[in-house]
């Protein structure tokens, strides 16, 4: 009895978090993809790894921090990384993409050091790398809800500015929009979503949930509004199918979610081909 309530709660945490992430990650992902920032999302997820690993190490070695939720340091690392990327992109004006390998290696480098310093959290680490159905705590869920609220407030306040910035950056500046500040806020919010999504899909696959549903939606949508709607639908579909199959087949949800979204992507590519060839029997 107690056992099943316990099971009920961890499933509740995982599914509630999953549904929230399936909504906000592709929603923000639309802007990330059209602004060609997908690789930056990837780099940030590796920085988040450094924060998580550092936090796991700290809670092992500093008694007072034993109960520290690694998500917090993950968030700090991710947001710091996003600000560094902006700094680097301005420093290397003519080689903006150089910021990505720099930040990515920094994240992985620190991550590797903390992982080897700390001992015996390989199972924890596995769940952070590839996601987990069972490891999402109530506290994680609350953090994710908080992040979701920030994303929704941010997008509803700056939606039209973000559209202009994404479609035509120079035009945005010529119109006198505070393009720089909106962009910095955007990067911080992206860093938050990456840190928040990592519990469910895992660090290595976070950026996939921000990009694959969007890639599928862009194949078949006629308007920006439709692209957003379809991205969210595909994201939710991937998370639901992925979490259920991960639970029953005892697989890492990061894998099942991403494979589901790849299948959706292939279906949209395939359906578009059929559509453009006209009626196909069968």
């Amino acid at each position, binding site marked *: 009895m107690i056992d099943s309530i316990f099971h009920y709660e961890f499933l509740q945490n995982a599914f509630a978090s999953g549904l929230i992430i399936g909504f906000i990650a592709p929603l923000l992902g639309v802007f990330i993809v*059209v602004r*060609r920032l997908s690789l930056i999302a990837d780099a940030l997820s590796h920085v988040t790894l450094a924060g998580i690993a550092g936090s796991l190490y700290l809670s092992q070695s500093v008694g007072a921090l034993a109960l520290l939720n690694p998500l917090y340091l993950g968030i700090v690392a991710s947001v710091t990384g996003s600000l560094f990327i902006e700094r680097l992109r301005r420093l290397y004006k003519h080689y903006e993409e150089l910021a990505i390998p720099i930040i990515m290696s920094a994240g992985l480098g620190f991550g590797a050091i903390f992982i080897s310093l700390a001992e015996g959290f390989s199972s924890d680490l596995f769940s952070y790398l590839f996601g987990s159905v069972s490891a999402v705590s109530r506290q994680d869920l609350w953090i994710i809800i908080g992040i979701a609220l920030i994303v929704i407030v941010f997008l509803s*306040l*700056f939606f*039209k*500015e973000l*559209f*202009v910035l*994404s*479609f*035509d950056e*120079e*035009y*945005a*500046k*010529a*119109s*006198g*929009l*505070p393009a720089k500040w909106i962009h910095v806020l955007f990067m911080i919010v992206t860093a938050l979503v990456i840190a928040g999504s990592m519990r469910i899909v895992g660090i290595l696959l976070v950026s996939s949930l921000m990009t694959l549903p969007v890639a599928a*939606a*862009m194949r078949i*949508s*006629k*308007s*920006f*509004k*439709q*692209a957003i709607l379809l991205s969210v639908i595909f994201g939710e579909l991937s998370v639901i199918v992925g979490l259920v199959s991960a639970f029953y087949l005892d697989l890492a949800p990061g894998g099942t979610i991403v494979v589901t979204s790849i299948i959706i992507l292939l279906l949209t590519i395939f359906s578009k081909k059929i559509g453009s060839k006209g009626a196909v029997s069968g």
Partner: protein
Amino acid sequence: MGSPLINLHNISYQYEQTKALIDINLTIAEGDFLAIIGPNGSGKSTLLKIILGLLKPTSGEVLLFGKPVNQFKEKERIGYVSQKSNSFNTGFPATVTEVVRSGLVKKTGLFHRYPANVNKQVRQALKSVGMDEYSMKNIGDLSGGQQQRVFIARALISNPNVLILDEPTVGVDSKNVKSFYNMLSHLNREHNITIVLVTHDVDAVSKSISHVACLNQRIHFHGFKNEMDQMSDEQLEAWYGHAVRKVDHQSEVKS
């Protein structure tokens, strides 16, 4: 001649290594249709960006509507169609309506929604560039010339006093260039929109424009287009490096 809308005083601009503009003085008055012409790399785009406040001049002063450019807040009074619009991301999932509507972003203001009658405004703007039938099309599915018209509609929707265009006919096939300039003429004459245009199609544009500025780091000539043949051979040489055909001054001149 109308009142001056844009004043450039002793503008110079230096990129890290390149001196792009030297000591530019230029006044653009209400109702002008000015073509800025000059060889590649002569600083045309740089000059437009300085007018728009996208680049800060190394020295000199820009006045927009009588105010220094950094104090000028009503950016919606100046519509801009950039050179890069020709090569924007064609895969972007947006309809013509969504793109044109975004021209109201500054006028609407941060934290506000677009006004309730925004669709009517979009239709009007599209109509004035002859694109009202395309409102639901994906922007990437249009031809270069049609996209350029959509970008002009995006600039027009905020009812600007000035329209600034950087080589808008690159990528537009030659048979549509003429109707494109006719449309600009119409905006200039019937809607009293001041137009500043960078172009290479000196012949095609000559019927529409009132003024010419010949630029190559410096302004080598600025005046009514029919005065352009007062340029001496030395001036022409200094401007373009070799003799060029002068603008056809037989065509009608706007009064």
